[in-house]
């Protein structure tokens, strides 16, 4: 259906045509915010145009047969959206490979492991990697780090930030010799500035903070990752009422999933382990119980295999179960020393 036939104002129509949208189908699969950015109009106006367009679609009897239920998205639209957002790299190529490129936005990823395996290290690495500029294949976003156990050490974050900038300028030097425009102006202090650090000391604070994040992120729209380290700590100490715990946890999980979906950011939850008696022997599983294990979209377990650290994809709707080795170095998370591959940033 032609744009010219839409009942919208002349200025909006001319903007649409100037931006290159001549038929309805060319912009009907976009999200209103994307359209707003392209046409340089407000979100509300874009939403209005989309609404009129879909109405027009329905009258036409063309594609989109079943009337759109408010809030529903077709699978095709979702595929387009997924491809729009790059994934957050973990700085370890093997780990990125099994994760399908990195940590996915709009999803809740849970990462668990024994103490000392590198969960906090991975959390800090992701908080820094989300800030990699778009030119270098990153998201150029900010990070929120919610610390429940006090294990975030600023000195270490500074160390990893410096190493990340070093790597980026190395890659920049190799690939973009003639590109004077993208001079690397990042300083470790800038990176630290873009990590919003929250410290919570009890489970009530934790829940209150997650409720508050909604407002915080609408004010800081460039936050692209929320890391909770760790989500279990306050729920494991002296909790007598298990039913209450399960309720609180599932409420929290729903809120986090909504955050991830609404603001298109990645949510990474770091979890601890506990022993469980299964089939006659004790085994290690992630803490917080069985009902919590349903709350996250993806699950990654970090474990020791011989002398190496490995990551195992335990649960994911789109990735297959696989293990990959990684190592923790003074520069952060990197490939394990046995596979010597260069880290590709692009």
């Amino acid at each position, binding site marked *: 259906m032609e744009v010219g036939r839409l009942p919208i104002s002349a200025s909006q129509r001319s903007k649409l045509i100037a931006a290159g949208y001549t038929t309805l189908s060319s912009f009907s699969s976009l999200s209103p915010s994307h359209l707003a950015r392209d046409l340089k109009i407000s979100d509300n106006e874009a939403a209005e145009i989309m609404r009129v367009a879909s109405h027009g679609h329905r009258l036409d009897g063309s594609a989109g047969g079943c009337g759109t239920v408010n809030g529903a998205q077709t699978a095709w639209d979702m595929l387009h959206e997924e491809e729009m957002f790059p994934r957050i790299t973990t700085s370890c190529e093997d780990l990125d490979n099994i994760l399908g490129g990195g940590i996915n936005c709009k999803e809740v990823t849970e990462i668990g492991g024994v*103490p000392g395996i590198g969960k906090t290290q991975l959390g800090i690495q992701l908080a820094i990697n989300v800030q990699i500029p778009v030119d270098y294949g990153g998201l150029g976003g900010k990070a929120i780090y919610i610390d429940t156990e006090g*294990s975030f050490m600023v000195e270490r974050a500074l160390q990893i930030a410096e190493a990340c900038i070093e790597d980026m300028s190395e890659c920049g030097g190799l690939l973009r010799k003639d590109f004077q425009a993208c001079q690397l102006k990042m300083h470790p202090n800038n990176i630290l500035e873009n990590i919003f650090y929250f410290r919570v000391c009890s489970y009530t604070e934790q829940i209150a903070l997650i409720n508050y994040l909604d407002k915080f992120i609408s004010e800081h729209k460039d936050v692209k990752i929320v890391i909770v380290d760790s989500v279990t700590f306050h729920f494991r*100490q002296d909790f007598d009422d298990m039913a209450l715990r399960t309720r609180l946890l599932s409420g929290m999980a729903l809120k986090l999933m909504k955050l991830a979906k609404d603001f298109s950011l990645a949510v990474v939850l770091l979890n601890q382990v506990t022993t469980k008696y299964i089939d006659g022997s004790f*085994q290690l599983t992630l803490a917080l119980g069985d009902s919590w294990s349903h709350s996250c979209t993806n699950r990654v377990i970090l474990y020791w295999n011989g002398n190496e650290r490995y990551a195992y994809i335990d649960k994911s709707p789109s990735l297959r179960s696989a293990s990959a080795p990684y190592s923790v170095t003074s520069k952060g998370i990197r490939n394990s020393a046995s596979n010597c591959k260069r880290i590709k940033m692009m």
Partner: protein
Amino acid sequence: ALSLMELRVQNEHLAGHLPTHMKGLDEALCGGIPFGVLTELVGPAGIGKTQFCLKLSLLASLPAIYGGLDGHVMYIDVESKFSSRRLIEIGVKSFPEIFQRKEMAQEMAGRIHVLRPASLSEFTESLQQIKVSLLQNQVKLLVIDSMAALVTGEFEHGAPRQNTLGWHVSFIKSLAEFSRIPVVVTNQVRSQSRDETCHYFFQVQSWNETIEDRTRHDSHLVAALGINWAHAVTIRLVLEAKSGQRFIKVAKSPISPPLAFPFNITSSGILLLSDDGIELTGPDINAIHCQGHNDIINFGGESLQ
């Protein structure tokens, strides 16, 4: 995060670390025992945990010009192992220029307050009182020796130990954080029971391996207080004895690589034999060995001056 960094560097003495005067360890820990987090010392009996704590207490009470924190120390001594005579001996041998004057020794020792709670409930009470004195800004170090001894006396039937200390752990951590002081806790070891595996469901073990593992487990020690506690501490320093030599290992730390340093106990406290640590890969860093330990103790009077 940037404001955190600036706050620490500008406001805090020595950028937020208490130097231990063991050069290799201080380098590994980016300056020393960090403020605001829980540091755990775990090791078999007689390896030197209390000696380490005594040295740290002394260092914290020293004036700033000598590298101390110029503050008071709360020493919670559950097992009655605190020896003031040994404390003075360490002081005299390590800092002879300060301790030559009798008043200095008295002042330094006067800054170390020793509490001896006889039960968990007394300990809880003391914690509340410590919070008050922390608010008055005088206490600069909290030492708890040992945490495990608090629970072992309480329950006979192996009731859920994991939750007993739950509240205390959160409380101590929040104490450490809002007052920005280092907290050092010692822990005991226990032998690993046979049916404890450390594997996930997706790690398949062959039957042969399990037989070998069982024999390995018999000589293996693990830290007491369980895995919940292991998650809660931020830095874990393992003291062990391997082939007759004592080692101090940085087993869990967000800011350091896994290093092991050999050390000896001398009249001036703990002395590292080498400042370049041996880097250990793999889960071995967490293992606690006790080989040849008896030789060290039996040597006793001869090697320890």
